[in-house]
């Protein structure tokens, strides 16, 4: 799903929710996943002016989960360690987006090359 403007955020969140409901995720985990996805998609809009997201259903043994990948061709993040700290923001926001999203999901992976773009992958297991 391509994200280009603020109006894309809500449909995107609904898509994530649909997938989460399909695998029978609890309301709490649904909310956590949706909030994390919402943080990351807003970051993508704000700093990279948009990008592409992919939502997938995963299964590992008896466990089901959802993977969301956020890919953008923005300026990239110079210091990932610093960006992952609470309260650090280059914009005028609260600075909890990236570290907060990490706390909300089961697995979190971020790769960024300055000048080329950033890819964030999150996985939320159904009972994780």
């Amino acid at each position, binding site marked *: 799903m391509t994200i280009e403007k603020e109006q894309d955020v809500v449909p995107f969140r609904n898509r994530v929710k649909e997938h989460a409901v399909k695998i029978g995720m609890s309301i709490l985990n649904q909310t956590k996943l949706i909030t994390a996805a919402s943080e990351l998609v807003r970051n993508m809009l704000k700093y990279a002016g948009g990008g592409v997201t992919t939502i997938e259903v995963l299964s590992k043994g008896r466990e089901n989960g959802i993977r969301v990948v956020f890919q953008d061709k923005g300026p990239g993040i110079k210091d990932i360690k610093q960006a992952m700290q609470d309260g650090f923001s280059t914009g005028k*926001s609260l600075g909890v987006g990236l570290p907060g999203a990490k706390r909300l999901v089961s697995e979190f992976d971020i790769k960024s090359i300055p000048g080329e773009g950033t890819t964030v992958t999150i996985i939320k297991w159904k009972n994780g």
Partner: protein
Amino acid sequence: MKTDIAKLLQRKKKQIFENWVAAQLADSNLRDELMSNEELRSQSDELLDVLLKTINNDNLSDVYSQAFEPVREILAGISVFRAKNGYTPTETGLYVFGLKEAFLQAIQGEMKSDLPGMIEVTFRMNKLMDHLAIDTFDTFIKGREEVILRQTDEITEISTPVIRVWDGILALPIIGTLDSSRTQVVMENLLQEIVVSGSTIAILDISGVPAVDSLVAQHLIKTVAATRLMGAECIISGIRPEIAQTVVHLGIDLSSIVTKATLASALRHAFTMLKLEVKRVQREKSI
């Protein structure tokens, strides 16, 4: 000899028109509840008239030339009209294609003796009408978009009411996602109402907000700060259990704000702040 399409069609205009309208009226899916037959006739007549006046042998292949401007304008008008009145895109498309069929019928009937000429003319007419139909689709979608835009405006207007629940207490139920523009509207309405009503307590109810992420939280904090600057206290209510957990995990600090789970408990808190007491009156038993 090259046949003059324009002249041919002009001559056959009456027949084309009748065929076209007859086909439209015969269609079982005719939406006569949306438009009367007379209206349909006059609309079709106008379009055909202008189209035939415009067409000549030279400009037939270029719909986007200056000469076709009036035709496209009328088509756009029809298309927008249909979009607003609830026609489906298929119906609008078929309307134009119906005209094409009527044209081709006329050409076929007239040029039986000149087969290569007929093929050529048919081909060119086909192309012209296809372009016009595509154009119609474009404007049809634009018409629909206008409807959507108007609705969006209406939704923003109606979705941020400020309610005076008590003397000095305002409630503001927020429904839907809080983005920057919504926050702006909410804040303006709230601050304005605080001044007008002289209220000292405002309750922001977020039961209707599906997800609270850091941006929404930031907007809330800003609204609360602005309210405080106006000398009023702000209570946030309607925090659902899953939202509470999510906010904690996100690491957003809302401890400086009074938050309540329900609007009722927020109202009770507001009463305490105003030193009001709500009592159940014991009625005297009637004899």
